[in-house]
């Protein structure tokens, strides 16, 4: 999750003259053209035999013209994509304190396990009798997720966090329909929520009623009660919330919601703070998605693929979508259709096949490696690291809700930048020059110019000390009026600030053969 507020325009960014080279390369930083500029239509990096002559049976719908797809030989492809990779920042490159995104270490054991042929090279529709190990793995993962959350059931198939939200809200809609309460069309969403929450609710026909956050960043039970009535289907609440705080009145909120006949959807994006410390099931949650790519270390991969299994309370469990696991007289099997079976009345199907198996293997590998003790320690270290950064910066930066212990992420705002002519964005861009990925900025919306820092448990003390020292140096530079360091940043990255306004006004979304672009101003 991230939000940049407004698009970046270039008016405030000073141009600087880069060290000039003939190639425009800068030693290890190599300029790289597009595939379409370096590939050729008659080149292929895959050796395939040409089939013997045969009569096609394509019903006369054979492709007539050229596609226009260039090819690369293998060495060209290696160089092209390795060079592109070198323009990216990853967790393996350095501290990646992107709040709400939980950029923790991605163990390579997980990658190795996911590639075992018995997991990677099995088809979702080969007979279930030939994949007992895969079903057992899904059952084991389900057991761990249910135990960790104190819930009753889990729907594994959602493909990402937002897809999990959709799954949970569909289960709620189905449960209400089963109760005959179709009039419940309103979903309560606090102002501090991720944008996916209101978008999910709206996608399936709910209208959104917002609940303001209190002066301390928390949602008050009184505010929820004031918003509850017979039209309310559910509340969508993130806990720990997007300000990095555990919702103090969550139990009272859950009780009020249930008393009003509604359900409690919890956005589990921040589960990493509380694994082994508290269980959503004990707090009154009815449904919660778990981002396997956050809490359970499956790689973010530049934006996916994710996985968003949803744990469900006893009230919602019967409505979980197909497919679902069932252990009965026939042993363990996956029920693939959504016809009612016994007490199970699935609301339908969210995706083809069975969900993100590759991510299940990775997440289970993480869980087995940590165990109950390791996961508790991981949560504690994540929270400790965030508080250590808070303690190291609280005298220089401002916090919207005062200096109080946080969970796994610490929220600052831009009050400390007032009158300096600099913005949160400028701080973020200056961090890039210092070798860091910036924190989440301009989210949550309840803090002005938010900077949300989540170090995760993967950082060493040494790494945190250097980050704190860097942030302090930047803060002191701000106070000293060194505007140029910020306004011209980043100066050292593969690209400097990009013109997002131009990209949106004149969208160029694909390559087309055309005249060369304007050259650099030198």
């Amino acid at each position: 999750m991230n939000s940049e507020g407004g698009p970046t325009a270039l008016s405030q960014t000073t141009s600087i003259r880069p060290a000039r080279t003939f190639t425009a390369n800068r030693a290890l930083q190599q300029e790289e053209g597009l595939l379409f500029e370096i590939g050729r239509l008659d080149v292929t990096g895959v050796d395939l035999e040409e089939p013997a002559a045969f009569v096609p049976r394509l019903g006369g719908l054979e492709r007539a013209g050229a596609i226009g797809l260039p090819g690369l030989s293998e060495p060209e492809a290696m160089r092209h994509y390795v060079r592109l990779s070198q323009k990216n920042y990853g967790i393996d490159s350095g501290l990646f304190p992107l709040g709400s995104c939980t950029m923790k270490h991605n163990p390579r054991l997980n990658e190795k396990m996911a590639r075992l042929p018995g997991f990677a090279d099995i088809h979702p529709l080969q007979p279930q009798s030939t994949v007992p190990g895969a079903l057992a793995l899904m059952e084991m993962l389900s057991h761990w997720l249910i135990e960790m959350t104190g819930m009753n059931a889990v729907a594994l198939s959602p493909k990402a966090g937002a897809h999990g939200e959709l799954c949970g809200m569909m289960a709620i809609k189905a449960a209400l329909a089963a109760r005959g309460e179709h009039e419940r069309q309103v979903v309560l969403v606090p102002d501090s929520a991720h944008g996916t929450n209101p978008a999910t609710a709206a996608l399936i026909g709910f209208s959104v009623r917002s609940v303001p956050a209190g002066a301390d960043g928390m949602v008050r039970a009184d505010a929820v009660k004031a918003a509850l009535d017979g039209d309310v289907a559910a509340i969508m609440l993130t806990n720990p919330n997007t300000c990095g705080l555990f919702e103090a009145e969550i139990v009272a909120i859950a009780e009020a919601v249930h008393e009003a006949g509604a359900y409690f959807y919890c956005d589990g994006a921040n589960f990493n703070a509380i694994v082994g410390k508290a269980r959503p099931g004990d707090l009154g949650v009815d449904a919660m998605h778990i981002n396997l790519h956050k809490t359970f270390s499956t790689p973010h991969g530049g934006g996916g693929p994710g996985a968003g299994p949803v744990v469900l309370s006893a009230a919602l469990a019967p409505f979980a979508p197909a497919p679902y696991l069932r252990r009965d007289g026939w042993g363990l099997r996956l029920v693939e259709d959504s016809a009612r079976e016994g007490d199970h009345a699935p609301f339908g199907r969210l995706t083809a096949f069975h969900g993100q198996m590759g991510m299940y293997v990775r997440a289970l590998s993480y869980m087995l490696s940590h165990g109950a003790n390791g996961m508790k320690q991981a949560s504690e270290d994540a929270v400790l690291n965030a508080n250590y950064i808070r303690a190291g910066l609280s005298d220089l930066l401002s916090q919207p809700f005062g200096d109080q212990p946080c969970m796994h992420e610490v929220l600052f705002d831009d009050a400390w930048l007032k009158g300096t002519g600099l913005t949160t964005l400028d701080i973020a861009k200056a961090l890039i020059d210092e070798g860091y990925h910036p924190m989440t900025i301009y989210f949550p919306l309840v803090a002005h110019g938010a900077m949300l820092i989540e170090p995760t448990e993967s950082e060493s003390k040494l790494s945190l000390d250097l980050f704190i020292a860097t942030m302090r140096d930047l803060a002191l530079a701000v106070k000293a009026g060194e505007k140029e360091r910020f306004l011209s940043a980043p100066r050292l990255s593969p690209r400097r600030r990009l013109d997002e306004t131009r990209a949106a006004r004149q969208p160029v979304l694909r390559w087309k053969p055309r005249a060369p672009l304007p050259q650099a101003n030198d």
Partner: protein
Amino acid sequence: MRYLPLTAVERLDMLAKIGAASMDDLFVGIPADKRLPGLMELPAGRGECDVERLLNGLSAQNKAAGDVPFFVGAGAYRHHIPASVDHLIQRSEFLTSYTPYQPEIAQGTLQYLFEFQTQVALLTGMEVANASMYDGSTATGEAVLMAHRLTRRSKSVLSGTLHPHYRAVVETLSHMAGDHVEALAPAIAGRSEDILAAIDADTSCVVVQSPSFYGEIIDLRPIATKAHSVGALLIAVVSEAVSFGLVESPGQLGADIVVAEGQSIGNSLNFGGPYVGLFATRQKFVRQMPGRLCGETVDADGRRGFVLTLSTREQHIRRDKATSNICTNSGLCCLAFTIHMALLGETGLKRLARLNHAHAVRLADMLRDVKGVEVLNHSFFNEFTLRVPGDAATLVEALAQAGVLAGVPVSRLEPECPHLNDLLLVASSEMNSDDDRHRLVAAMKKVLA
């Protein structure tokens, strides 16, 4: 714990700097009676060696496709993946990066997304494509919602050519959103359906899959003409991306939105996921498109660069007014697709597609020798429908016991259509040897005897 860098001494030192007496002091925000007192009732952590042993054991219980003659398809296909693809997608800077919200240090991701979008637009014959969806089925659901936004109508017509899981995804989403779906009966190979009659002035979109779930290649042109004549859109679905190399593109045949499952280029079977959904459409519809889009621009020094763009469609800006709730693409799977496609190029893709078709034609001919077995298709790409004597699911199970994974019984996806119980989908690709085909035919003869 090998993944946690802090030592006990460092933790104490840090707690002191924070001014906390103990770790528990940091968790005071959790109501005291809701804090877990001890450890969760789960096993203790294990070393790498132990985890490998356990997971190797589970993996070994499964029959991997590579160990047997393998003809299973129905929306997920096993093709050869060049070794360099998996190496490249595991580059740390690709594997461990986030969504490219800070474009200055994410040009690698952004440039391959731009390449991917261009490849998908070219393959589908459309003007623009997005940076990928979760998979083909969810892309189909999103396409229907997009058509409703564009036409301001709310009825979709689903052809019987559509994969039953895709149909279920659209039905679930539409039911929840209060939209209307008219799903036609399964259009089994060799028979035509009267889809034109189902399209009327209330129709927002018509969804047709080609090659169909049953393998038949569908002429989309008359359907596009009829749809357009009543102001409806044609959504074309492709569940085997390799077919783009040989079959005319849906864009050329009049589709307004093309969605596809991209798994079969660059991605393993993975028991169903993660996969990668392709989504392409006309330029004029781009602002109603779901999902991330990468666009070209310039940086402060005038150099070409790429950014995520048109994000005012998206949930993090528009919240409940967004075009979709989607907040992710299928990054690494999309990268695997892009790299494999770059290695193939036009020459390689077309050859791969011809090879697949040739293998399937050969297999279809060989299966005619099996008594009682009939190939139903008039046309097909690399998968076709067989009518077999008796129950196809029983046959597949028996063949599996005999060491051949023969295909997908239609009844597995259409359990409520008993009249389809004798249908079997069989796919053949460049991965099958002549020996594989002979073993399938021999095993089938033996089991059916």
